[in-house]
Each structure stands twice: as C-alpha cells, then as structure tokens.
C-alpha cells in the first residue's frame, strides 16, 4: 500500500511518544547521569567522566556474568529452536478438537507468571517434596540444585526449555500452517522423502517466523531475571548469576549506582545492536515478500 506523506500524522503518534518518553527517556537520563558521577553520600554528586565505564569493562565479576550469560543463551537456543521446530512438525494440521487441545496445553507454560514458573521448578527439583528431585534421589543420582553448580544449571536450563519452547513451537506452527496444500501434493507426486519435504518446502517457508523466534529467544534469554532468581537466587555462589541478576544486585542490592548505571548502558547497547540486526533483517524480509 502506498503511504501518503502527512506531517500531521505526528499528532496520532504523539501519545505513544509522550508515554514511552516518560517511561524510557527520563529514566535513561537518570541512568546516564549516575554513570558519570560518584557520590560522597548525602546526595552530593561529582563528575568522574568515564571512570565507571572503565571499571565495568575491566570488572572480572561482570566478565564472569557475561560468560555465564552467553553460555546459557547458547545452550537454550541450541535446545529450544530444534525442539520447537520438531514439535511444530507434529502438531495437527487441521482445525478440530485435537488441535484446540494441543494449542491450549502448549500455550499454558507461556502464560504462567514468571515467578510461579520459578516456584514450580523450585518445588519440583527438591528432593524432599518435588517429583523430579525425589525420583532422581530414589534412582541413586545425587542432585541438589542449591549446592551443586551443575545441578543448578541443569535445573534452570530444563526450566527454561519447559517454559519457552512453546513460543518457538507456536511461531513455527503458524509458519507451517501458511504453506498451501499444493506444495505437499506436488512433493507426493515427485516422490520426495519426508526429509526432502522438510528441507525444501517447510524450512524455507518457515524462515521468516524462525528468525523472529530465534531473535526473540535470544533477547529474552539475555535479559533473564525472575525464573533463575526464584529457583537459585543466583547461586550456588555466583554460579547462576546472569547479567540481569548481577545488575539488579548491584543497583538495588548494593546501591552501587555508578557502576550499575555504567553497566546498564553497556548492557543496553549490546541489546540495541542486536535489535538493529533484527530490525534490518525483518525489513529486508518484508521487502522480499512485496
């Protein structure tokens, strides 16, 4: 559709602009403010330039948090994307009772408050009162997510897979459903194998939604806070302290405003960079489709 030029359109966009400015710009200004200042206490601040940024960029603690975060994100992407696609391929293709049941069950984990997701798994993994913990214990496997690093990671990863795979599934499913029957019919006539059908018909047509799924999962896992916080609190020690958890600890826990602010800005910049890639890819995809 050809759009018309109309500067008056700004009026329609104004409410959004004001709201988001209030929500985003003003706080950001505060953050920028803190990132270049230090305090003696008693609300007296003085300028320190880029000192905090240097400290943050060289901080071992933050580097560690960053590596933990990257490892976590890579692992869950490697599991959730293929699993989501695989499950989407097995979802029913026609509308009906079974399809409704599938959609409701699959979507359920997505609508549970994140802290409840954490609570569910916190309970589930305990040896005394949780099904998973108890079963593992009975099988003779030592399992303690509050004290053992590997167990903590294991629990958080399986929790995230449980929580978010459905998003990948639903997006992939939407992509699959949009493929006209004729393609499958032609493949039958061409005697294509199941794998060929996936590789040459389904995967190419799902490319768009898959990119959205991957980038969304990347973003959200990079910002993860609530679920691991509820289950392990970041522990044992620092083992599951990912970037957001570390940041909140710094800002609200320790009230280290300077470093926290600098950290925030860098964190935000990283995400901004990836957003930009996201946006450009999507715009190019839309152009291809037109």
């Amino acid at each position, binding site marked *: *559709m*050809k*759009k018309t*030029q*109309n500067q008056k*359109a700004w009026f329609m*966009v104004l*409410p*959004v*602009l004001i709201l*988001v400015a209030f*929500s*985003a710009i003003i*706080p*950001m200004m*505060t*953050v920028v403010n803190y990132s270049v200042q230090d305090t003696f206490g008693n609300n007296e601040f003085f300028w320190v330039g880029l000192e905090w940024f240097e400290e943050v960029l060289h901080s071992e603690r933050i580097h560690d948090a960053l590596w933990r975060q990257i490892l976590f994100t890579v692992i869950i992407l490697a599991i959730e994307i293929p699993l989501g696609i695989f*499950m989407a*391929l*097995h979802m029913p293709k026609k509308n009906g*009772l*079974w399809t*409704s049941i599938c959609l*409701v*069950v*699959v979507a*359920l984990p*997505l*609508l*549970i*408050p*994140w*802290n*409840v997701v954490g*609570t*569910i798994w*916190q*309970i*589930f993994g305990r040896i*005394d*009162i949780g*099904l998973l913990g108890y079963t593992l214990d009975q099988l003779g496997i030592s399992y303690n997510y509050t004290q053992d690093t590997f167990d903590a990671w294991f629990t958080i990863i399986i929790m995230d897979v*449980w929580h978010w795979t459905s998003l990948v599934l*639903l*997006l992939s499913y*939407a992509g699959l*459903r*949009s493929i006209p029957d004729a393609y499958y019919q032609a493949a039958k006539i061409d005697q294509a194998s199941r794998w060929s059908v996936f590789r040459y018909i389904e995967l190419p047509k799902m490319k768009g*939604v898959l990119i959205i799924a991957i980038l969304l999962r990347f973003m959200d896992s990079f910002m993860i*806070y*609530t679920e691991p916080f509820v289950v392990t609190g970041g522990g044992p020690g620092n083992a599951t302290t990912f970037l957001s958890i570390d*940041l909140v600890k710094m*800002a*609200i826990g320790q009230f280290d*405003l300077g470093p*926290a602010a600098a950290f*925030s800005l860098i*964190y935000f910049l990283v*995400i901004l960079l*990836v957003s930009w890639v996201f946006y450009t890819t999507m715009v190019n995809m839309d152009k291809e489709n037109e």
Partner: protein
Amino acid sequence: MIKINKSTFIMILYFVFLLLPIYWLLNMSFKTNQEILSTFSLWPSEFTFDNYIVIFSDPSWYGGYVNSITYVVLNTIISLAVAIPAAYAFSRYTFMGDKHLFFWLLTNRMAPPAVFALPFFQLYSSVGLFDTHIAVALAHTLFNVPLAVWILEGFMRGVPKEIDETAYIDGYSFFKFFGKIFMPLIASGIGVAAFFCFMFSWVELLLSRTLTSVDAKSIAATMTRTASASGLDWGVLAAAGVLTIIPGALVIYFVRNHIAKGFALGRV
C-alpha cells in the same frame, strides 16, 4: 476425530513433559503443609481445600490477585489506547522521522527491565506514584506499547487504504469512519494485541515488585516475599501458584482460534 499416529504419540509425550510440573503444583495445593513435609505421594492422602481457603480469606493474599488484575487491565487499556492511533499513522502515512521512530519503539521492547528497575523506582517515587497500580501499569507500557504498535500496524496494513477513501467519499467523518468501519475490520488484531499486553504484564515480576510495597502489591510480589522467608507454607504457596495459572488458561481457551492466525499475521 482424533487420529492416533506417530505424531499424536509424540505430542502426548510433550504434553506429559509440560503438564507434569503443573500437576505436581496442583497436587501440593491440595495437601496440608504437614503432609507435604512428612510424606511423599503422587496424590493427597488427605484431600484439603484449606490452602485455598487461606488465600481467599486473607486480604494480603487475595489482594495480590486483585492488584495484579487491576494493573494488567489498566495497562492493556492504556497501551491499546495510545497504540491504535500510532499504528494507524505508521500504516497509512509517511512523515518525517517515521522509520526512526518505529525502530526506536522496537528497541524499547528489547530493553532489559533490570536496567529500568532502579530508575523507575526513583522516577515514580519522585512523582508520588510509588506503590500505585497506575505506576506498574505505566511501567509495563515500556514494552507493551511497542509490541502493541507492532502487532496492530501489521494488521492495519492488511486493510487497504481504498476503504478509508471510500468512507470519506461516502461522507464519514474521520472519527466515525474509525469507529464504525475501521475498528471492526481490525478486531482480531486488537484481540491479539490485547492478549499479548495481558500476557506480558501478568507474568512480569521485577518491575511489579520494585514499584509496589503494600497497597498495590502484585500477587507475584506477594509470592516471592513469602518465598524468601524460611519455614515456608508450601501448601499455600502452591495454591497461590495454581490460582495464577487460571486466568492464563481461561484466556488461552477463549482466544485459541486466534492464536495461530494472530502469531502469523501479528509478527510477535
């Protein structure tokens, strides 16, 4: 009819995976705390509603639900109210800085809430809105408004401009056209946007906990405050958890037909 084949079997395995932890929560919610801590069983030996009764009778518990629903609804209304005109503008017009504005909006969806926790705390405290529903509702618009604009713009693009023009030729004023003709056409888009606003606001913890303390305390905050103390009342906690799942389950059930369609068109 339900066809039984390999796919069905695999789906059922996945269901077991998804439903098992939820079943476990349900299981616990019907046990007394004593039973939970003393024995381990797949279903309650003494089935009890006590945990639920505690929640429904204790204002500090049920208040949490009321507060959460309040700010979620507020947020959905506000988000949609500002997003609809903006999405309309983006879908129909080009104007100075439009692409940059759209991109900037998207970046807000990508903002880590952790970055905003402290600034929001200070901001809302300074305007005297700390511990109010409106504070959380506004805070959540940070990521819900971009999402709503994005989804709505996608749906609105699907309505040809010719319909607008025809309405004007027929003598409709802009507002009449918008209300009587346009909105019904994008009804499913509004539904999808509202669904996602509800979803992301309902599930969020960090900001809702940071910005509230007593009056507007969300159920998520109530639950986590409970959880940080020792000597937990697991039964009540489990019941509280189950109750938070119900609104979500109801919402999915009612929009199940729009979900797949909405995901594809709305470009979540």
